[in-house]
């Protein structure tokens, strides 16, 4: 049900011409990797992003409904995603692998399942 809701939101935003969601990684060839992710009860969209090791990442986080958290403890990343304006996180992945992310701001019945991954490739 939540996946269906998330998909509906994605379709609606794409239909509205939102450039931020056209591709998860907008520019992998320049000096930085630009990645966008949406937060909403109780999903990240997309719930998995892929970036390259050793190349700086600019991660733009936005929320569609309320305050959410973004916590990737094994990557040392943590921020709150405030409504109203994107939150930007910058980091350079130093090791390849799959790194979990989760919402650490309690947001309701389903909060415990609000999680995703950052995949770092060589």
């Amino acid at each position, binding site marked *: 049900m939540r996946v269906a809701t998330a998909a509906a939101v994605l379709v609606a935003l794409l239909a509205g011409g939102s450039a931020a969601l056209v591709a998860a990684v907008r520019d992998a060839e320049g000096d930085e990797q630009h990645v966008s992710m949406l937060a909403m009860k109780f999903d990240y969209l997309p719930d998995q992003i892929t970036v390259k090791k050793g190349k700086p990442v600019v991660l733009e986080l936005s929320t569609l409904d309320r305050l959410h*958290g973004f916590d990737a403890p094994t990557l040392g990343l943590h921020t709150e995603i405030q409504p109203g304006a994107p939150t930007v996180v910058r980091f350079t992945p130093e090791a390849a692998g799959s790194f979990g992310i989760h919402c650490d701001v309690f947001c309701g019945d389903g909060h415990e399942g609000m999680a995703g991954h950052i995949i770092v490739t060589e």
Partner: protein
Amino acid sequence: MSGKFNDIDRRQFARLAGLGGVVFASGLLGVAGGAHQAAAAGADDFMFVQLSDSHWGFSGDAVNPEAKNTLKKAVAAVNSLPMQPDFVVFTGDLTHTTDDAQERRRRLGEFRDIVKDLKVKTVRFMPGEHDASLDNGAAFKEFFGETHYSFDHKGVHFIVLDNVSDPAAKVGEAQLGWLQQTLAKIDKAAPIVVFTHRPLFDLYPDWDWATRDGKAVIDALMPYQHVTVFYGHIHQEHHQMTGHIAHHAAKSLIFPLPVAGSQPKRAPIPWDASQPFKGLGWRSVGAEVKQAAYKVQEHPADKV
């Protein structure tokens, strides 16, 4: 030892204490060198009961088809103990969360009505994130009062900490200041028990099993020689030390959660019809005071 807790047949406790049977007896004061004067003078053995994570209002037959009965069974089981505890403490998530503020209050009210059937009338409460994080504890306070407080019982200092009313899982500067003021009045050798909902240490941050500023709490407690923490949140028994401070997580009364990191997501463990109530339970805690403590003072032979 002749304290009343020690008069109870421990095997009988094991049979009675819980849905599936849980016994935990902690020598709260039984630490070598712990001959604290106040404890020796004023404390007596006693027992309390910890219940946690009842999530009243939860529904989901796949994980607990007995959701409407489990809390009531626990209340009946505590009432059937041959020796009633001095008090009962609920370490949070009394109710299951809801976005509907009216429904939240209905669940809190129903929970309160159920636990009124406990024989023991001293019952302590604190919120979990399901009770308090969506309204910063407002509804909880209407039913159960303050979310952090302290009290003394038979020479033991009990401190209740709220690490859930802030949805970002912080104790916060104001409460940390209150904690430091509270601790400043306590002897470093005094027995201290902390009740809280989330683990104060980083048990498994990937599943949000932590308190964002929990290290500041542990740092404040560290100078005290006899500190024990009882908490809930993780829906399973777990024991860990941070230095000399012991942390004990309790089972839930609604559904068990898997061991940290044992599966990709922290989803509830499904109900096992062949073993109803498996993984659910509560605990009794016996505080055993070592009476045979000796204060030794040496005297020179040349003084009369």
